[in-house]
């Protein structure tokens, strides 16, 4: 059902945890639906220097979270914002069709974290 790459990310997820002094936090999904993802970013000069995640969900949801953090790290905010759900699915060598919608929340959570950073940044 899952690709080898997805299983590898599920088994050894990268960037798990919180960033205590995060510059932006994005939450997508909810536990009632079965998948909820929280992404923390640390930003310097419009570049994502550090990113971490916490995820409640199935194997796909955890692998998606791991992958999106890998993809986002080192990218400019603009580049990171442009990452799509399809990009994440492709990077994992595909997702089962029924998981594309419910578990593929990484890109949305990352965008929310970037928006959170930008809204705080403007106020300052």
């Amino acid at each position, binding site marked *: 059902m899952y690709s080898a790459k997805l299983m590898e990310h599920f088994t050894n997820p990268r960037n798990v945890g919180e960033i205590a002094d995060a510059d932006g936090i994005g939450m997508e999904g909810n536990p*009632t639906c079965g998948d909820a*993802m929280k992404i923390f970013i640390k930003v310097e000069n419009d570049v994502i220097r550090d990113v971490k995640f916490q995820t*409640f969900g*199935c194997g796909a949801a955890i692998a998606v979270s791991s992958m999106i953090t890998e993809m986002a790290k080192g990218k400019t905010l603009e580049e990171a914002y442009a990452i799509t759900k399809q990009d994440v699915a492709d990077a994992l060598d595909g997702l089962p069709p029924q998981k594309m919608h419910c*578990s593929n929340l990484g890109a949305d959570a990352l965008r929310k974290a970037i928006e959170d950073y930008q809204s705080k940044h403007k106020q300052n």
Partner: protein
Amino acid sequence: MKTRYFDHVATNPLLPAALDAMMPYLKEEFGNPLSVYDLGLRAKNAIEDARDMVASLINAKSAEIIFTASGAEANNMAIKGVATAKQGEGKHIIISKVEHHSVLNTARSLEKAGFAVTYLPVDKYGFFDLDALKKSISKETILISLIHASSEIGTIEPIKEAVAIAKERNITIHTDAVASTGNIPIDVKDLGVDMLSMSAHQFYGPKGAGALYLRQGQRLVPLIYGGIQENGRRAGTENVPAIVGMGKAAEVAKAELQQRNAHTGRLRDRIINALKDVEKVHLTGHPTQRLLHHASFVVEYIEGEGMLLMLQAKGIYAASGSACTSKALKASPTLTAINVSPTMAHGSIVFSLGIDNADEDIELLLEEFPQIIKRLRDISPFRKGWGEEEGGSKHV
């Protein structure tokens, strides 16, 4: 890697004795049981021997056993067969909210065909509300179909009490005993049901074989028309090897039931006793009035599929009623019926034991599983609690 199989409610390995009994009928004894020459007669005799063994397992008469291709077919046959036979007397059917899909979806199909269906509520253990059963019966009620034991939460239901209520009003009563037949003692005369469904692979027989017990005198319209196989109640050339395997598995199950129950019951209690001490892990179903090979839980803050995949990485196979593990992405209706919230239902995990499990398998499970819970909780944003997202453990 050695595998440890704790999903015996999904299916079981075939008993070697059953395979040995089947082999001749997959090879040289290929006759059609309806043929008049000796090759056919031998196949016919093999089926009738199997019928005796299956009947003996549940204390029925041989003539009361109809072989089917599955437990699901037996459930369909019972419900549609009686609904069709008795629709002139009324069009109301009662089932419970903790039925298998083969009962639930059959009842739903009858709803579309103009029948009324009552879905009986259950309490937090999954026990039927017998007062609600009494109240839901009307002059129109022709059939009650209630599960004997749940493969999801393990609870063994008060079928005898339900039968007493049904018999007072002369209503036909069927029980889906797929999860229990061959796993706990069943006596249809003692239970008093009119029909009972079972499946061979639930007691180490082959897949593709099931049976319906149909009490002598109970009317039933067939699902499948054709020849006179199964006394005209189920047409189609018999799956002779599977039926022979089912018979053998039934014979062995009857002989070994006590010993099997002592073994799986002890292993089950080891799991329940160990996991009840893990924080925010809750037993589902009744603590004692449950299948001896069944231990089921919900684990808070994490999701079932993740648990299954991590267990698999350790060679451990289990099951979950989590929505993410179902193809339809819906929470199990049984967990919903016992008032487990949709959020908590995601953390469902079921360990079902069998004769192939040993103490060392349980020891490995009890060593690995708490670590897996911790690993997944370390990833979860809810590891410190559901917060405002969910009311927490009060639901179980």
